[in-house]
């Protein structure tokens, strides 16, 4: 794979979440997987072994990835050996996302998110 150098003048970012990547320059293989279980309880009492990933189908369900069967042959040649970027501003990168300035060969990103809300009944609220 022909190499190129990446020149970035300024890159502004506020937050990079779990298993996210900011890559300036070439890379070969990039794999990022993240499992997020977000629980919001009106009465915020949590116990240590309460929410396990294996208890939820979202995290065990296999996701079938399409396979490229057709023979594919790509040759790339770069007239100029530089990637020039003046100003990039990406405020937030959520779970397993990638900001990539440069060439790459294969990238595989996977994320599983489950949100749970526990709201108390009105009767329980009066007992507070």
């Amino acid at each position, binding site marked *: 794979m022909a190499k190129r150098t990446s020149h970035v003048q300024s890159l502004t970012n506020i937050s990079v979440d779990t298993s996210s990547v900011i890559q300036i320059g070439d890379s070969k293989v990039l794999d990022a997987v993240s499992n997020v279980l977000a629980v919001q309880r009106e009465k915020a009492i949590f116990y240590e072994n309460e929410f396990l990933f294996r208890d939820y189908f979202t995290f065990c369900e296999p996701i079938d990835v399409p396979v490229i069967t057709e023979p594919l042959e790509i040759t790339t040649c770069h007239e100029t050996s530089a990637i020039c970027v003046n100003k990039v501003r990406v405020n937030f990168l959520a779970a397993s996302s990638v900001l990539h300035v440069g060439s*790459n060969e294969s990238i595989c990103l996977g994320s599983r998110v489950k949100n749970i809300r526990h709201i108390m009944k009105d009767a329980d609220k009066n007992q507070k």
Partner: protein
Amino acid sequence: MFYQVINGDVCVENLKVETLVTASSLFIGDTKTVTLTSNYETPPETLIVGVTTPRPSATQRS
């Protein structure tokens, strides 16, 4: 399938993106294979009303 890519100049003056959500990628440059998978589950499927917080004994697992 066979194809050839001839890259000229890649010059980005100004790029502003608010948010990259889960399992997404922003490329300045080229790549061959990209596999993005995402599994997202949110209320109302799992909005549980009337839940009382579990008693300590109920959550002791073996």
